[in-house]
């Protein structure tokens, strides 16, 4: 029962600075590598100046949306402009399939997350930070709570309260407004925007929402200096390092810190040791399961937002999941669609109904009951979901499915011609069980349209 590999693959150690195999869980250990020094210095500077430094670094959100973190902070009104409390919520609801980096941050460098929270709190003059952590993360919750308690006892919090709020199992609560609803004690169903959380977020107050990795990067940015940070990686837009999540059919999976611009080929073959058994790489789940799959001919595309964007890919949460030749791509698309069907909150019709359509059609293809026109119908359903809902969960189902149908159309056709799956039971994902909603009273009707 092995441990997750977590290490710096290339470039400067920033998020993982000071971590060399031994978790920096104790305050003394963290202080020994310069911990909380950036907070101390930042507190002597004007809050606006700190925001300006984050803007200068061009840090972008590591949760998936890649929005400029500094700009987001600059939208928050200053306390003299608004008679409401100002909140920070840290999104630790890491649930995107293939993503396991925030968890390692919380286990390995929890104090850096706390330091990042406190610097951000100083920058936007907030007294209350909520960390929304997914309910399944128990060890991670204990690790961060331990760091908060230690920091409080050492007087580091200086009047700022950091409260961990544990989720209860819902992917949609990783969506920022779904998270706010959940934190307010409601069903985690996304809100209509505007108003944006910076103006009316938690309890209708100005709220800054950032991913764990984004917040944890802030002390590292101040340590190297924002102009220096802005030169790392693939400037001007994809600055700095990030934690890439390498998994799937690869020799050495793990969390690897590396600068933006590293190629998937380098990450998979040099850092990760390649595909086991010298098998052929068939596709890469790039950015997370919510995005178009990458085909082998694009393995030299630098992992930065611009280069990926030019080819229709997304950097997402830094996921690189290797899929080898043994996997049936229809089964892959089906399992991905099942996930989104299960996680759809049900608020918007195109997503609630569309994800069920995708599952039904993909199952028909997989079982050889479909016809050529059903492949077009699949793409049509995707088209009727994308951009038509309050949040991007529906898009996240449609984009990978559409990419599989488009890029692997021959393999979909083979299912039609063969009258079933040409892989038989040899595919790695064959018969893979997908959870259904345990609360539904009629499990048989789970996938049926109502």
């Amino acid at each position, binding site marked *: *029962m092995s441990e997750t590999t977590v290490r710096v693959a290339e470039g400067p150690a920033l998020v993982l600075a000071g971590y060399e195999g031994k978790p920096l869980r104790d305050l003394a250990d963290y202080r020994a590598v310069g911990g909380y020094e950036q907070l101390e210095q930042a507190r002597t500077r004007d809050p606006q100046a700190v925001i300006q430094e984050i803007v200068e670094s061009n840090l972008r959100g590591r949760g998936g949306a890649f929005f400029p973190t500094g700009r987001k902070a600059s939208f928050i009104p200053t306390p003299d402009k608004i008679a409401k409390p100002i909140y920070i919520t840290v999104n630790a609801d890491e649930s995107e399939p293939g993503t396991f980096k925030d968890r390692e941050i919380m286990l390995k460098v929890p104090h850096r997350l706390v330091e990042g929270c406190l610097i951000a709190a100083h920058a936007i003059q907030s007294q209350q930070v909520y960390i929304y952590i997914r309910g399944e993360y128990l*060890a991670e919750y204990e690790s961060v709570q331990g760091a908060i308690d230690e920091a409080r006892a050492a007087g580091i919090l200086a009047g700022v309260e950091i409260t961990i709020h544990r989720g*209860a199992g*819902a992917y949609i609560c990783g969506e920022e407004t779904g998270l706010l609803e959940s934190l*307010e004690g409601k069903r985690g169903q996304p809100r209509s925007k505007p108003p944006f959380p910076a103006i009316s977020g938690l309890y209708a107050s100005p709220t800054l929402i950032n991913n764990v990795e984004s917040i944890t990067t802030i002390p590292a940015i101040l340590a190297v200096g924002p102009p220096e940070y802005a030169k790392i990686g693939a400037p001007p837009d994809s600055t700095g390092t990030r934690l890439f999540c390498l998994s*799937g059919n690869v020799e050495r999976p793990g969390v690897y810190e590396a600068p933006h611009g590293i190629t998937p080929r380098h990450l998979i073959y040099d850092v990760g040791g390649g595909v086991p058994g010298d098998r052929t790489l068939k596709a890469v*789940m790039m950015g997370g399961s919510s995005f178009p799959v990458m085909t082998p001919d694009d393995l030299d595309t630098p992992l930065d937002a611009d280069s990926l964007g030019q080819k229709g890919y997304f950097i997402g949460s830094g996921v690189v999941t290797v*899929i080898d030749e043994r996997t049936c791509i229809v089964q892959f698309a089906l399992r991905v669609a099942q996930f989104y069907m299960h996680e759809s909150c049900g608020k918007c019709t195109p997503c609630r109904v569309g994800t069920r359509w995708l599952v039904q059609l993909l199952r028909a293809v997989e079982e050889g009951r479909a016809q050529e026109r059903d492949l077009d119908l699949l793409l049509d359903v995707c088209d009727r979901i994308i951009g038509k809902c309050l949040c991007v969960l529906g898009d996240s189902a449609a984009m990978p499915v559409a990419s599989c149908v488009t890029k692997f159309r021959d393999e979909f056709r083979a299912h039609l011609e063969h009258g079933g799956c040409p892989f038989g039971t040899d595919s790695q*994902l064959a018969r893979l069980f997908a*959870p259904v909603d345990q609360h539904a009273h009629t499990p048989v009707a789970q996938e049926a349209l109502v």
Partner: protein
Amino acid sequence: MGFYEEVQEIRARYPEGTRSAVLPALRLAQERHGWLSREAIEETADALELTPAYCYSIASFYDMFDLQPAGRHEIAVCTNVCCGLVNAQAVLEAFEHELGVGPGETTPDGAVTLRAVECLGGCSTPTLVAVDHVYRQSVTPEDVPAILAELAE
């Protein structure tokens, strides 16, 4: 401390007049009762000064709340794509075989509830299995009997 008092402590962590304590209070109730029975939901609603219907509407949204009796132990096997690529199905089947129940079911003696769950965030060490919420990484079908033996102790 009684349940009511503990819930009041949770409520104090959040601004007055908000419902933020619902999730932690329901988790506490589930820990005490083993699952969210009608009585557990009513007790939670009373402590929060909310209606049972509201609390039920929240409990039914989130996967980790049990609205049916659950076993004393929980085994949650990740069957999302990353674990699936590296044999999660075989691990799930090994549990099914050893326990004699399918995903979502509880053994007749009420000892273990088996679940298949979505990505738990342990993709580099498949298959990830959460045993009573504690993560076990890189679980293979061969590890299954030993895990169950631990629970039987």
